[in-house]
């Protein structure tokens, strides 16, 4: 069933979530959901408004802690761990509404994604300034090549607050790529982006996947999901509904029903 583009890794899934439950007061936003992301896969997560997609996403990214269930990332149980532990296991995320470091320059934003930097220790800046400087030079070079990748090079010295909505999404992508994740969780990358920039984002996401990055994509834009994902998981009312190739899923009566019943526009 998976598209030709999706390559399965030799080992276990990169992210494996089982029986996730998230209770907010009387509301079960996620109600026993399981999902797994294979190495190199580009997986779509769709569902009507209120299906619990964003809550599930936040559970996977660690910014919410599950009421029940487990999340195993690259073989380590991170169910109870905060978001800062995800990236060291190779999982990065973007935000539905981008969160640039507004007063920092575009280049500095990307540099902030660096991992294991000696210069993040107060003492190393005084005891090993040479090592800090060498790392920093390498980091700047890498950050600039990532800015080239997302076509923001010409803005590297500008504060991130001047970027448009779509540019902010690209900046977030570059920032998380700085951390060399194996998997990227993309939260509605198409929302509020003009068509030209959207094509660029789609192109870059395909490129990343071709280079072996696993991608989990939450998206309302079904056309985008069809173009990108080999496999789509459908969620409704906090639960797993079905999965399959995008074309099959969008014809599935249960899915159509969930969308028609779920959207109270």
């Amino acid at each position, binding site marked *: 069933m998976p598209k030709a583009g999706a390559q399965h890794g030799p080992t276990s899934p990169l992210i494996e979530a089982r029986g996730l439950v998230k209770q907010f007061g009387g509301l079960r936003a996620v109600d026993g959901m399981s999902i797994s992301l294979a190495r190199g896969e580009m997986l779509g997560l769709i569902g009507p408004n209120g299906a619990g997609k964003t809550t599930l996403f936040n559970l996977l*990214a660690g*910014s919410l802690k599950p009421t029940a269930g487990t999340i195993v990332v690259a073989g380590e149980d991170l169910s109870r761990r*905060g*978001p*800062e*532990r*995800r*990236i*060291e296991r190779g999982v*990065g*995320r973007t*935000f539905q509404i981008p*969160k*640039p*470091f*507004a*007063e*920092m*320059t575009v*280049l*500095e934003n990307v*540099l*902030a*994604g*660096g*991992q294991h*930097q*000696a*210069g*993040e*220790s*107060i003492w190393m*800046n*005084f005891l090993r*300034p040479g090592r*800090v*400087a060498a790392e*920093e*030079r390498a*980091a*700047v070079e890498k950050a600039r090549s990532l800015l080239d990748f997302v076509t923001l090079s*010409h*803005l*590297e*010295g*500008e*504060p991130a*607050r*001047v*970027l*448009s*909505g*779509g*540019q902010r999404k690209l900046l*977030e992508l570059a*920032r*998380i790529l700085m*951390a060399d994740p194996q998997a990227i969780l993309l939260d509605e990358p198409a929302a509020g982006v003009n068509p030209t*920039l959207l094509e660029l984002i789609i192109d870059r996401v395909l490129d990343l996947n071709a280079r072996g990055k696993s991608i989990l994509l939450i998206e309302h834009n079904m056309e985008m999901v069809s173009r990108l994902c080999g496999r789509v998981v459908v969620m409704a009312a906090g639960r797993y509904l079905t999965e399959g190739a995008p074309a099959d899923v969008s014809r599935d009566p249960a899915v159509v029903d969930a969308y028609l019943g779920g959207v109270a526009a």
Partner: protein
Amino acid sequence: MSVELVAYAAFFLTMALTYAIMCLGLNVQWGQTGLFNVGVAGFVAIGAYVSALLTTPDTPERFGGFGMPIAVGWLGAALAAGLVSFLIGALTIRLRADYLAIATFGVAVAVQLVALNLEPVTGGPFGIGFIPRPFADLAGNPLAFSLANLALLAAVVVALYLALERLVRSPWGRVLRAIREDEAAARALGKNATKFRLQAFAIGGGIMGLAGAAQAHFIGFIAPDNYVPMLTFQVWAMLIVGGSGNNRGAILGAVLVWGIWAGSAGAFAALFPPGEQARAAALQIVMIGVALCAILLLRPRGILGEERVVSRHLGRLSQLRRAGPQPTDKETSRAGNP
């Protein structure tokens, strides 16, 4: 210029520099990290009292007086205030900014009340006197004494400035600013926000303690009255006027606001009859308030404002690159578009 005038100018600047140190401490906490500390006076007081206790001669009616060298006092003050900041931070640093403000304010009031009431240690309302002054053997020559003290404080400020600039322009400083700008995004990049905020809070508190010690030794006498919330307000005014997030701005703001404060005190003493001077003193606070409003209206980022640091390791490189032709892009004109 008369000798008195030079001596007074040196005295004025030395006092201003003690405030500059406090301001540098607050800049680490607020300017870099966005930690809303409204208990500056408390951390300054801890430094002042610790150094006074360490360095004054043995006094029968109160604890200590350990007669140690001044340098030990200053170091002890910075360490003690840094340690207290660390402990308070460990309890409160996860709080939202407004709650952190309430907590730190409470700490400062508690410290001041302890200083006022714990007579066997702090000397109570009368404070601690005979705190050894640096270069005391020069006291016979006011000019030499003032200049030597000014040189000492200037050296401390320069050393602190250089050390802080190195940190601000390092990956460590970058993480602090990232946390200040968006904590959730910083955490998603693997940055342990609590750890970095705690480090910044403790370092800032330690610097405030050092400032308290330096001031105590320069004046030679401390009392609980010195560490009321007005001090916190002054230091905040200094940082906002000079430019939050900018270490040079912190120093400049301290000198300017202290100039307004000391200058207006002199002017009011000359202008008003002695019977009215206590009431006229309230005008000093008004002056600071007016200066603050003027700055916020005219230069909301302060006189110097925060610089866009990229990294201390690529200054020239980035200038070269930015000096090159800038491709025009339709998107660049969409400044401020969310």
